[in-house]
């Protein structure tokens, strides 16, 4: 099996992105620790970023890469705010289990 | 264009509201002083407006016109005519008096109170002065905010309920108003290609089909009838009146509930003439029910403030009756009532507020014998009460008489039934009065103090003005009439409606005279 036969098409990236995304999504849905959930959200974001880059390469269109930059910036902002919130929650209740945060209940 | 007077009338209280809001909360006396200064300045501008208003001019005066949201064809157009003139002037008069009446009652969060009160004045002035439908809607909605916070912040026990009811109920009407406004604008655009919400342009446009006109009329009516308030949309009024602070009640009864009637004359009449003519009987029926029903229910109240609140329902019935009589005399009377009702009912609400400050109750059953201990209060109450009943000599009678006369010209049964309201008016005022003021004083009533100088100063101008306008209403009627006449002529121009003032009986009479003459001539010929 040559290296050429093992050509890496964009579908590889997309499959990888889908897998990472799924890991992230399942993580968000199943884990209770807010910090871990937060990391899983980051996984999902980066999975999407990966697919954007893959598409940009495949379609030869730079727009996808531009969007990735936007997402990175937003993610950075989100990390800053999100971590701040998590720290605040830790300070208040010593642990951070998502199911205890029921203030949104109607 | 000279000095934008109307813009100044709207902006002055707004500036005041912002300035007061920026003050430190502890400086209550500064907030009060600024409140007096800005409401006083607005009143002065209104006085200037009244002085320079051209009597006999049928159109809009002091017009101010600026583009606002050009992309949507929204403009900021202001103008005043005989119908809005006095509403603006009365608003200008009531606000300083309202602040004066609040002196003792409002003791906490004075700064916020003054700021909201000033914002309320801006909204009301805007409603009466704008000639652009979108701007009108903006002010119409803006009104709800300060009113909501005034009730919630300084009201009585059930203020939360009342504030919410007021906001949602009148807000519901506004939704119909907005939808109808947009549909009207877009229909006009489809027809002429120009997107505009300018009232005068739309009034001149004559392209509505029958069904669309009726539907749009009903949409506008939803907003106006709730605000008016017309039976059966009146139940928010007593609740809000009882819970609102005195000054809020005065403004509410004085000008806010006039906005519905104003909307009918200003917008519904000119924009939807055919629908107005066609649906007038329905509104007349509701008005007549309101007159009788409001009076009967008022008589059964045990809360003095609710009595006056329900009496407002009856009075507004007379206003709607006059307006939808579609006669000059009736519209004259209705608009005159809109000017006079704030004076008399305002005085009554102020007096009830003063009683409440002394006895901490509004229940008639807990009063009794106030005549013994507070002769000045009683004397002023008697004057205000009979002014409200519509005793000739007070302004209330003039409006009521002309409204009824107009309705009688239009369709007699309405006027005949509505005239019975005159009897009930005496019942619902005199009965509570007897229970609250006659008899022997006991308990807290016996220790009650009579009015002081400040309180007399608040009430007397209103009653004096009511008495003056009752005996010499000509200056007001002369200024209202061209606008009323324009409204009726507008019907005659756009629809096949013909005012009965010129026709029917008097034509009958003329015909009979002619016939008699012919007969006399014939007899002479025989001889």
């Amino acid at each position, binding site marked *: 099996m040559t290296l050429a036969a093992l050509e890496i098409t964009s579908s590889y990236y997309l499959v990888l992105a889908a897998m990472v995304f799924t890991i992230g*999504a399942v993580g*968000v*849905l199943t884990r209770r620790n807010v910090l871990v*959930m937060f990391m899983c959200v980051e996984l999902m974001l980066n999975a999407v970023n990966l697919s954007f880059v893959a598409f940009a390469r495949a379609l030869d269109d730079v727009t996808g890469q531009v969007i990735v930059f936007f997402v990175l910036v937003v993610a950075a902002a989100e990390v800053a705010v999100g971590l701040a919130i998590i720290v605040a929650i830790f300070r208040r209740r010593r642990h951070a289990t*998502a199911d205890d945060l*029921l*203030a*949104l*209940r*109607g | 264009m000279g000095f934008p007077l109307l813009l100044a009338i709207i902006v002055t209280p707004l500036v005041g509201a912002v300035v007061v809001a920026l003050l430190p909360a502890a400086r209550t006396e500064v907030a009060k002083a600024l409140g007096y200064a800005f409401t006083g300045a607005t009143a002065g501008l209104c006085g200037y407006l009244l002085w320079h208003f051209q009597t006999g001019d049928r159109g809009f005066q002091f017009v101010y016109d600026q583009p606002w949201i050009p992309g949507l064809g929204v403009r900021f157009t202001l103008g005043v005519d005989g119908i809005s003139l006095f509403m603006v002037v009365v608003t200008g008069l009531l606000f300083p008096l309202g602040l004066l009446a609040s002196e003792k009652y409002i003791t906490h969060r004075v700064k916020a109170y003054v700021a909201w009160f000033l914002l309320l004045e801006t909204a009301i002035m805007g409603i009466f002065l704008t000639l652009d439908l979108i701007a009108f809607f903006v002010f119409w909605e803006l009104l709800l905010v300060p009113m909501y916070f005034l009730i919630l912040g300084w009201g009585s026990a059930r203020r939360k309920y009342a504030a919410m*009811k007021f906001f949602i*109920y009148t807000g519901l009407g506004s939704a119909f108003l907005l939808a109808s406004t947009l549909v009207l604008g877009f229909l006009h655009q489809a027809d002429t290609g120009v997107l505009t919400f300018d009232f005068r342009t739309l009034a001149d446009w004559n392209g509505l089909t029958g069904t669309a006109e009726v539907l749009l009329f009903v949409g506008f009516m939803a907003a106006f009838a709730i605000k008016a308030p017309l039976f*059966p949309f*009146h*139940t*928010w009024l007593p609740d809000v009146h009882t819970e609102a602070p005195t000054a809020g009640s005065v403004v509410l009864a004085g000008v806010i509930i006039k906005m519905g009637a104003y909307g009918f004359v200003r917008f519904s009449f000119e924009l939807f003439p055919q629908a107005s003519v066609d649906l007038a009987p329905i509104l007349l029926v509701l008005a007549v029910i309101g007159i009788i*029903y409001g009076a009967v*229910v008022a008589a*059964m109240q045990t809360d003095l403030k609710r009595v006056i609140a329900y009496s407002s329902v009856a009075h507004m019935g007379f206003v709607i009756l006059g307006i939808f009589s579609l*006669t000059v*005399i009736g519209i004259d*009377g209705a608009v005159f009532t809109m000017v006079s009702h704030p004076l008399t009912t305002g005085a009554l609400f102020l007096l009830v507020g003063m009683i409440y400050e002394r006895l901490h109750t509004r229940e008639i059953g807990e009063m009794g*014998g106030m*005549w*013994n201990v507070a002769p000045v209060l009683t*004397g002023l109450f*008697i004057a205000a009460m009979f002014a409200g009943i519509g*005793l*000739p*000599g007070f302004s209330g*009678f003039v409006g009521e*008489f*002309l409204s*009824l*006369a107009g309705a*009688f*010209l239009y369709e007699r049964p309405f006027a*005949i039934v509505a005239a019975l309201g*005159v*009897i009930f*008016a*005496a*019942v619902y005022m*005199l009965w509570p009065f*007897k229970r609250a003021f*006659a*008899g022997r004083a006991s308990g807290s009533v016996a220790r009650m103090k009579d009015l002081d100088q400040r309180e007399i100063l608040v009430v007397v101008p209103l009653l004096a003005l009511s008495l003056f306008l009752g*005996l*010499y209403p*000509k200056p007001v*009627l*002369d200024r209202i*009439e061209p606008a009323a*006449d324009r409204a009726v002529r507008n019907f005659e121009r756009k629809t096949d409606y013909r005012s009965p003032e010129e026709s*029917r*009986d*008097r034509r009958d*009479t003329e015909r009979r*005279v002619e016939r*008699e003459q012919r007969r006399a001539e014939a007899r002479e010929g025989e001889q």
Partner: protein
Amino acid sequence: MNASDILDYLGIIPLLPLAGAVILLLAGRRIGEPRAGWLATGMMALAFLGSLVALFALLSLPAEGRLQVNQVFTWLPAGTFSVGMGTQADPLSVTWLLLVTGVGLLIHLYSIGYMHGDPLFSRFFAYLNLFAASMLILVVADNLLMTFLGWEGVGLCSYLLISFWYRRNDAANAGKKAFVTNRVGDVGFLLAMFLIIATYGTLEYTAMAPAAEIISAGTATAIALLLMVGAMGKSAQLPLHLWLTDAMEGPTPVSALIHAATMVTAGVFLMCRAYPFLEVSHDASVVIMWIGAITALLAGTVAIVQPDIKRALAYSTISQLGYMFLAIGVGGYEAAVFMVLCHAFYKGCLFLGAGSVIHGNGDNQDMRIMGRYRKFLPVTAFAMVIAWLAIAGIPPFAGFWAKDEILVEAYAHGDYGVWIVGTAAALLTAVYMTRLIFLTFFGNARFEGADAALAVPVVSGGSDEGDPAVATAHGPHGSDGHDGDEDPFEDHPTVVFGEPPRPGRLHGHRPHESPVLMLVPIVVLAGLSAVGGLLNLPFGKLDFLHQFLEPVFEGAKGVKATTAQKLTAEGLSVLMALIGVSIALLVYRRGLRSPDRDPLVDRLRPVSTLTGSAYYWDAGVTRFVGGPGERGASWLNRVFDARIVDGAVNGTAWLFQRAGRAASRVQDGYVRRYALGILLGTVAVVCFVLLWAGR
């Protein structure tokens, strides 16, 4: 300045008492007790002088030129319709001016004595002056709407004066009832004005006669009858009479001035002004004639058994007013005006005399425990006897001429039905007045026995009744020191029919005569009742009033009675008067054997129960309003308004609230579940796009 210039200033006359009222309302307390009264009286005197000037100015004009209208300013301009404020000087308005200011002046004078010591002395005179001003506006007006201004003004003052002693529940209620009942009439007045506006567009009096010519008879009938509804309210005609007897709760001078001499005649004035419509409409005339006749008769039957002196006089007033409307119905407008004048004299005298009696015997109004008062109140007794002869219709006193002119007119007009009813009412008049006079002034003295037998324990402080200087501080409005006394009748001075006799209120003292200030007006009015007939003697050219008023009622189809007709009608009515007096004398000559035994009442049972209770009309109305009426209104308030109308509003709110609650269950606060929702939603959208929309 010539006569017509003077008449242009007629408007000053109402302004004089108005100024007095304003001054007294603003500064009455500072002006203080006697001076406030004198100020008000002075204003009335000036107004009376002004009216005299107006009379002479009018007389100096030729008879057909006696009409001077002066528009002062435009009051209500609205569209094609406009009403002014102006004055109309003609014989009718000047007659009423003299009546109001003249009788008003006397009653003001009387009140200074009667109200002595009342803490609200100056306020009383402010109201009296305000009343006089309103009444004068009503009279001088040149159009219906301005008359309505005065009309409601007198209604307001009547309300204030009836409720003057507002601490008494009955007084406060009576004032309210008077105002509300009058408002019922006012609706008629208002509708009449609207009909006039709709028909010929102007409310001026001078336009009435030409208008009546051209409008249809049906419209004329409607206008006349609607105005009559207004007049029925103000002049206490059936069925709107029920406020007048309750109005006796007010101070007695008020009963004399407002509820006997002046205000209640406003309806007559109105119908006189509206005579052109009556001339056109025969139907309206017939209705008015019968309303008057039936009122005269029924009120008379009620009056003959009343135990309360003021109530008896009140029913008598209603009955006499009925005569006036009878006169108007048969076209005898001058006779009606003549009756108004004479009635003002003798009924004013009777009421003031009754006030003097009540005042002199400790605020007692129950005639059953009076008797023989001529010994104690000789001047009052003398004056009231003259007024009695006048009202009973004994020649040559005023009442004879006035009443008989009406009956003659009815007879000559051919309306025999009303003539018979009117003559029967004359019999009743003689009976109830004789009964009143004899129960009060003659027969046995029953106050002593009443005091001994029925007196409640007397509190020691009662001795001030004997001292004339202090005795004037009387009644419920007296010094507050009386509050401590447990007097069950202090708050209910009125004695209704069927009530047992009251304990005397003299507490061992004797009735006493009133001060001179009160006696002078009584005597003057008695003198006028004696000679009032001279105004209008039915002989040759001696009918001055008739000649004076004739130009006002131009075109009225009056009937000239023949001598035979005159003799028949007058003879029969004098006979009736004599029979009536004789019957009453037979029964009451010796007074009552015991205060609880009234022979007339006992002998006429059960009819007397029916008439004494005023045919239960008042009680029935009260019961209806207080029963089903109030229940209905209460239902509207509690059930319809609160549950149905507001219930619909709150129900809508409730519905949305419930829907929101239900929907909000989904929001359980578990973030992961929201995220799962988002995920599933996304999958659903993607599936939709791939499976359906992509195709």
